[in-house]
């Protein structure tokens, strides 16, 4: 599904290398988790994959089902099936959540040559999905993320993901800021989307989320590289011992 090879990324504005050769293979239907110290480059990787400006890819490649991601505009990546749940969802005053969602859903359908959803079809779908995430009608009416609590913003990310049915979902710390119940809800939302044709990359600091969303593989990122990969037990090790031992291993 997602294939990242020797990805090296620096900043456009300053001479700073952030990703120093990331290799990552995620097969169809798999769930991978990435953990790693603050500032190790996890969000940067998710941004670069989704096409945020400000970064320069100096080497390496990233493909989604064989298509070169790095060559596409952000909206093309989305239409190709990539989705990023933001660590910090952006507030957009003046743009209604519903208008935003509907425009996004229909733009993607159009890009894929599918029929656009009618207002009625869209409304029905969004209501059902919002309900399962306990997002009330009032939140849907408000401007995108404006006045949402931290946890509401994260739930709104998952709602977007559910509406857009992407193939490759990257969740950047979707669990942070969620209360215990909300985390369960979000995990259920994610689990409901798990399928053979859909893969997940879950960035998190805590084992707790991985209790609910069971990963196939866990990676540790440090200083711009994946320094270790393993099974779910790796997350437990981090939870118990922190990163010191792992960092010492590679040093």
């Amino acid at each position: 599904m997602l294939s990242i090879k020797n990805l090296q990324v620096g900043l456009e504005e300053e001479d700073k290398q952030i990703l120093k050769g990331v290799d990552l293979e995620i097969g169809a239907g798999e769930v991978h988790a990435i953990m790693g110290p603050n500032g190790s480059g996890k969000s940067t990787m998710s941004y670069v994959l989704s096409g945020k400006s400000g970064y320069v890819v100096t080497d390496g490649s990233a493909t989604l089902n064989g298509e070169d991601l790095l060559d596409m505009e952000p909206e093309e990546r989305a239409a190709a099936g990539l989705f990023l749940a933001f660590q910090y969802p952006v507030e957009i005053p003046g743009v209604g959540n519903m208008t935003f969602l509907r425009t996004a859903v229909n733009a993607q359908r159009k890009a894929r040559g599918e029929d656009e959803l009618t207002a009625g079809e869209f409304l029905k779908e969004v209501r059902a999905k919002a309900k399962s995430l306990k997002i009330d009608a009032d939140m849907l009416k408000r401007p995108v993320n404006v006045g949402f609590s931290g946890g509401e913003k994260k739930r709104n990310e998952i709602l977007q993901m559910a509406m857009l049915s992407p193939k490759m979902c990257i969740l950047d710390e979707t669990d942070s800021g969620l209360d215990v119940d909300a985390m369960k809800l979000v995990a259920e939302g994610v689990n409901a989307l798990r399928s053979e044709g859909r893969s997940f990359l879950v960035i998190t600091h805590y084992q707790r989320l991985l209790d609910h969303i069971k990963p196939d593989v866990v990676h540790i990122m440090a200083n711009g590289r994946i320094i270790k990969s393993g099974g779910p037990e790796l997350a437990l090790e981090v939870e118990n011992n922190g990163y010191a031992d792992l960092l010492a291993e590679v040093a």
Partner: protein
Amino acid sequence: MANVQEKYDVAEALIGASTPSGGAIWAVAARETALANLRQMGAPHRRDEYWKYTNPTSLTAVDPLAADLFHTTEVRPFEMLDRIKLVFVDGIFDAAQSDDLSVDGVEIELLSDAMAKDIHWASSLYGVLEARGQSPVARPLAALNTVQAVQGFAIRVTGKAAKAISMVYLRGSETGDAMVHHVIKLEQGADLTLTENGPLAARANTVMEVEVADNAAFHHVRSQGRDHQRRAATHIFTQLGQESSFKSFTLTVNGRLTRNEAVIEFLGDNAHATVAGACAGDGDFLHDDTIFITHDAVNCESRQVFKKVLRNGATGIFQGKILVKAGAQKTDGYQLSKALLLDDDSNFMAKPELEIYADDVACSHGSTCGEIDDDAMFYLTSRGIPFKIAQDMLTLAFLHEALEEIENPVIAEDMGARLSDWMERRTG
């Protein structure tokens, strides 16, 4: 100085021979006062403090200018209102295309008819509010309008108007000037919605004098017409009584030069005034909002909310002043003017001014000029929304704050849709 003389020469040329004569004594006197004022002020000149950003030359050129006629099959704004329609073609009232001048709670009369009557309520307004508004900032084109205008309406509202009044300004000829002058009096407790729509002429000069008596409410919404080369100088002069309310919103897309002036004076306590506008310009476009609000009463609130979207070298100007006189305590003056520049060629100049002689007041002003927010743009495009659509969504979102000032949600939505369509039509 040569340029000083030029002001007076241009004024004389504009006055020319076309000054109407006759009418009631008060009408003659009003024109004479305006004429004397105009001769004393001279025509607007580039060196004038309030014409620094907008070159008035094309507004003061003696020969009429041309502007291509704009054709569209789209439904005109304000058609959804329960209203009567007063149609002008090339600045001349066209009774055949208009509805009967009859609305419960309102007396509507042609300006020329009113000005022929020796005893008429309009005598206390025509040219009177305009003359008052000439100080401290001169508005020579408004004085010229008072001198020369024969078209327009005298509207007196005695209760809640049963219908809205819509002025529709159509054009039939490519070349030509037009002047319209309305005097509107809202008696105590009266309520009127007045809309204006259309370009009026290749070059338009309008004056609207509005007296809003105690507890009365005036709602004004206008859309200035999409003709690309048209020019306009518009003036609103208003005086507000106790607990009265005045709200004016202007939508402007296209047009080569638009100068919208508003002069608002609070005379009674606890009154409210809003002047707001959303404009969108592409290329050869200059839009100037010049506002002067005088607080001379206690506990009044004024809001100025202007948003401008500019692309391909378009220019936006905002000159807004709040004057709080001694004793006008508890004044709340809010002023916001923002421009969104869609490229590096476009310009926005803002001159916000506060002059305050009372100590217990809250006045704020914010003028900013910015670009589309990168983070918002990335968020939208990362969801699969194409760049142009995302840009339009964010542009419309930027204008939203001004549209929110329109009280009637149906009109607000319609204005928003028109702006959205305007953006959608722009691809390059």
